[in-house]
């Protein structure tokens, strides 16, 4: 009953939504708190810049670092441009293969972000789905899911990702192509981070389940998936968004760590972590720029997203206001 009424009430609102929603957002506490926090604005600007650079990488990079034909050994080991030995157009220098560091960083950033976001999407879907199921149906299913979550929480995510990665390689052989490797890493990240979503969604579902409108929706014969998706999910958007933001930073770190440990993306298609792994070898021979710039890009990206996530968590937490 009330489900129908909700629909009826929402319909006219949705038609004139575009201007009024923006106005509502601009007047909201969230926006106010954002305007007041210089740190949040700075973090947002850096995050936006990183996303922009990553997106535009194929067009703004001086070189395609994945294309061996473009690499000239003559240009190898050049320092950054501001160094007397630097050569145009290699703004941030080159590595031992003559690969432009700036281009490699831009492409690596792109890859790190793609893998990170896909990882967040997978863990989000998995966690929200399992959380909904556990909370809505309860009973043995709930116990099973939450026990698994408990056991998994005792292990650091990186360990789980490594194990998933290792097992997959053992099962499918280590001759995976690049796309399959990316998929594998995304899945291992997804499997490592679903617990927090599941816990949050589950507890929220438990609260909502007892409320009258859900009971009413059940009575008029709406099926469980419809009820869950339409009525329970909107209530958890805030917390899930906060988790997802902080998770994006964690997913990027996890991918970078896997790649650094040599079980992530291959050197032919390097993410920031792979670049740091390869660059690390040159630390002692004086070519610091090969590792420094990917490192700075990774640190900046993760720090900005973390700051944004911290701010968002505080801003959306009614207890702190």
């Amino acid at each position, binding site marked *: 009953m009330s489900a129908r009424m909700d629909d009826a009430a929402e319909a006219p609102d949705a038609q004139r939504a575009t201007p009024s929603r923006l106005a509502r957002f601009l007047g909201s506490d969230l926006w106010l708190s954002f305007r007041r926090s210089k740190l949040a604005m700075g973090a947002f600007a850096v995050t936006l810049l990183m996303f922009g650079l990553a997106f535009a990488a194929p067009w703004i990079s001086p070189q395609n670092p994945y294309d061996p034909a473009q690499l000239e050994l003559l240009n190898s080991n050049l320092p950054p441009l501001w160094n007397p030995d630097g050569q145009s157009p290699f703004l941030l220098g080159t590595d031992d293969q003559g690969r432009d560091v700036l281009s490699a960083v831009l492409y690596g950033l792109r890859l790190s972000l793609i893998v990170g976001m896909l990882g967040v999407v997978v863990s989000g879907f998995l966690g929200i789905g399992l959380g909904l199921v556990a909370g809505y149906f309860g009973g043995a299913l709930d116990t099973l899911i939450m026990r698994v979550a408990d056991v998994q929480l005792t292990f650091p995510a990186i360990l789980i990702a490594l194990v998933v990665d290792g097992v997959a*390689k053992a099962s499918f052989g280590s001759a995976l192509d690049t796309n399959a490797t990316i998929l594998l890493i995304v899945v291992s990240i997804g499997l490592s981070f679903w617990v927090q979503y599941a816990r949050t969604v589950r507890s929220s579902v438990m609260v909502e389940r007892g409320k009258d409108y859900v009971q009413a929706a059940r009575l008029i014969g709406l099926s469980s998936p419809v009820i869950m998706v339409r009525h329970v999910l909107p209530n958890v958007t805030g917390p899930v968004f906060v988790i997802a933001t902080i998770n994006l930073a964690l997913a990027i770190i996890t991918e970078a760590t896997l790649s*650094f440990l040599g079980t992530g993306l291959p050197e032919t298609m390097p993410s920031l972590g792979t670049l740091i792994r390869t660059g690390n070898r040159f630390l002692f021979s004086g070519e610091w720029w090969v590792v420094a710039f990917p490192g700075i890009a990774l640190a900046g990206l*993760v720090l900005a997203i973390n700051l944004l996530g911290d701010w968002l968590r505080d801003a959306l937490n009614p207890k702190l206001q």
Partner: protein
Amino acid sequence: MLAFLIRRLAQAAVVLAVVGLIAFAMFRFAGDPVNQIVGPDTPVSERAEIRKSLGLDDPVLLQFGRYAGNVLRGDFGISYQFRQPVTALLAERMPATLELAFCATLFALTVGILMGVYCALRRETVLAKLFQAISLVGVSLPTFLIGILLIFLFSVTLGWLPSYGRGDTVRIGGWTTGFLTVSGLKALILPSITLGLFQMTLIMRLVRAEMLEVLRTDYIRFARARGLTTRAIHFGHALKNTLVPVITIAGLQLGSVIAFSIITETVFQWPGMGLLFVQAVQNVDIPIMSAYLLLVAAIFVTINLVVDLLYTVVDPRLRTSVGRTA
């Protein structure tokens, strides 16, 4: 108290059984163990023979039973890469990891608590704000990046400390220690900081938040009304109450320090269990992977138990509610 202990032990056993099942599944089903033993051109009949001798044709339950029995006797199988018993390989590398984890935890606890207390008591000072900023960076930066940065600063640029390995070690019985030589101690510094930094920032933030909370309580106000010295209030009453919940977290962190040492050991080429594990993942050495997983699970579970018991020792409220009434 006894009932509490038994319940805890049962929970621990369940966790270990689940992890054991996963380890067995990896051991048995990830790839064909026979392929790891014989070459690609071994005839089918010989393969079948080996399958049979390894018991791979028996019912799965029987195989699990056998696996569990072996594990309980300390037999984790033979490493594919090294052709040596996994148990011996792990035992050889365990001292390195444990010494590193111990130093990292010591560093994280002392520095983390000191900085946290300072930030809580001198909230408005520049130094406190600097600590806060450091903690934010420490939480955000990937461990391996911190390690590389430290190597660049203290090994490459300044040349003060070694960048890899354990230095000279002394063998005492089955244990190799780096504590007894200068080079061994110097080699410990950078890896310990790298490994402990994340935990340190965590403990610092926790101590700060917890202490600010405690300082607002009635008993602290009452302690002031009793005319106690600031010193007695801050360090006798506030700090003690702060540390009770911190113990739990810090204890549980010790477990993740051991697991996180995978990364630090790789950066510093530290010859411990973590490095062995990473090499196992790279080379699909399943016996080592499953053994390591079980070992870490066992360490986690043990630490959890110890922390629970420690908690009841520290907090008199728990001691009586668990002890005398039960």
